[in-house]
């Protein structure tokens, strides 16, 4: 029986919300004429990062020997995700746009929580490793 790591479960859930949410209920707006704004590409990047975060969490759940490294990777990925909308990929200019009003703040919350969960996972695994 594998030892269940709760931070991995939390990261997995948050990652799925990022991946699915960035394409649906938390996503960017589509212009009336069907063209894409930069927000669309930010949301695409978030989909990728969300999937990566989910994959890391799944691996952490099942590969016990690699947990510390996987949590470190999750934490760094969360930092990348945090910087994606707005800093690395431009989003709409106006505050009242959906991507600025809903997508970016929602992603900020999700990534910060994921960062915290991954950091907690790191701390737990590090302590366990030190204890031997």
């Amino acid at each position, binding site marked *: 029986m594998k030892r269940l790591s709760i931070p991995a479960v939390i990261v997995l859930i948050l990652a799925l919300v990022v991946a699915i949410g960035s394409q649906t209920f938390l996503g960017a707006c589509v212009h009336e004429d069907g063209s894409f704004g930069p927000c669309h590409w930010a949301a695409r990047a978030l989909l990728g990062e969300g999937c990566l975060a989910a994959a890391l969490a799944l691996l952490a759940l099942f590969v016990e020997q690699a947990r510390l490294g996987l949590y470190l990777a999750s934490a760094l990925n969360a930092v990348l995700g945090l910087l994606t909308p707005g800093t690395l990929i431009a989003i709409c200019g*106006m505050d009242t746009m959906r991507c600025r009003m809903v997508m970016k703040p929602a992603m900020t919350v999700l990534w910060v929580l994921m960062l915290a969960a991954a950091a907690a996972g790191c701390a737990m695994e590090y302590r366990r490793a030190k204890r031997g």
Partner: protein
Amino acid sequence: MKLSQLPLKNLTRRPGRTAALMLLTAFLALSVFGGSVVVDALRGGLASLEARLGADIIVMPAEAESKVSFKNLLLQGTAGAYYLDASALERVREVEGVGQAAPQTFLASLKADCCAVKVQIIGIDPATDFTVKPWIEQSYRRELQDMDVVVGCRVNADVGEDLRIYDLNTHVVARLAETGTGFDTAVYCNMATMNTLLKAAEDKGVTHRITSDGEEVVSAIYVKVAEGYDVGKVCNALNGHVRKATAVKAKSMLTGVADSLTGVSRTVALLIGAVWALAIVILLIAYAMMINERRREFAVLRLLGASRWRLGGLMLKEAALTSLGGGVLGVALAALLVFPFTTLIESSLGLPYLAPAPGRVLLLALATILATLLIGALASAWAAYRLSRSDPGNALREGA
């Protein structure tokens, strides 16, 4: 080992119990802090709206369905494009009791550069204006030149940049401080610039009304009543004297906003109160249960020579650490929810919303944490008092 380390060991070596109590406290802190910030922001919004308006009476086109669309302008920055002839300004000035009268002209822009955003463009007359000018002067002291614009804090254009409106380049010379109202998404310019932009809009077939023969048009006239005159009477006189226009007292326009604000504030305050009451009861019960479950443990400490006060101190320290952790966690979570979503909260409440200054936020956070600390201390002190009324010998016999 020192005795003072015991509370921390009790917490870290029973993570489940600690987490449950901390989360309970965090929930309390989250709702209190989050609610306080929102209520504070709403109060700030109303105050800044009142300060921004600064006029006693607003005269606007009769067909503007006055209150509704004007309120929209105040809160969301959207207004219909309705215009009065500039001659209305002269008619307004003729009325006895009118001290100052300042015209403004509104125009909604097309898409801005990036996304589908409409910007409200407001033309002012720098010579007579007394509503926006003092505010602009806070960030820009020089006269507005032709094709110069001053932007609200939510307009995505930096000072020194060009802002394209109707294919014309305007020059951004200043950015205004936040007000939490619809004015934050507006762009201000002088009347000459406004007329140029209006023409450009007409050429594109955007505006409803075409300016006739180069005559200037205005959207609203802000009136300050001269000293010694009654605002209501002047308002009535204006309604009689100026054709095709409606004069509305600014106070009555704001009353609606203030009323819904009071309503929201009261609802939030009520919710906070309910959460507090609930959380206090739950925390008291939780502490009482936790300490009851640990009666034997505490009796053993008494048996080893801990006095009531010393034991109470240990329990208090444990509760304080739990509350502190929970309080900080709750405040952090609330900050994570409230601050990034400021715009969403503002637009869904439909009320002026001016986020409190960092210093005030810090004050609210500290007050919240202090309050949770106090409740934790009270709950544990109450439990400790109940515990101390019975001899340790009695607790030692139970469940031995």
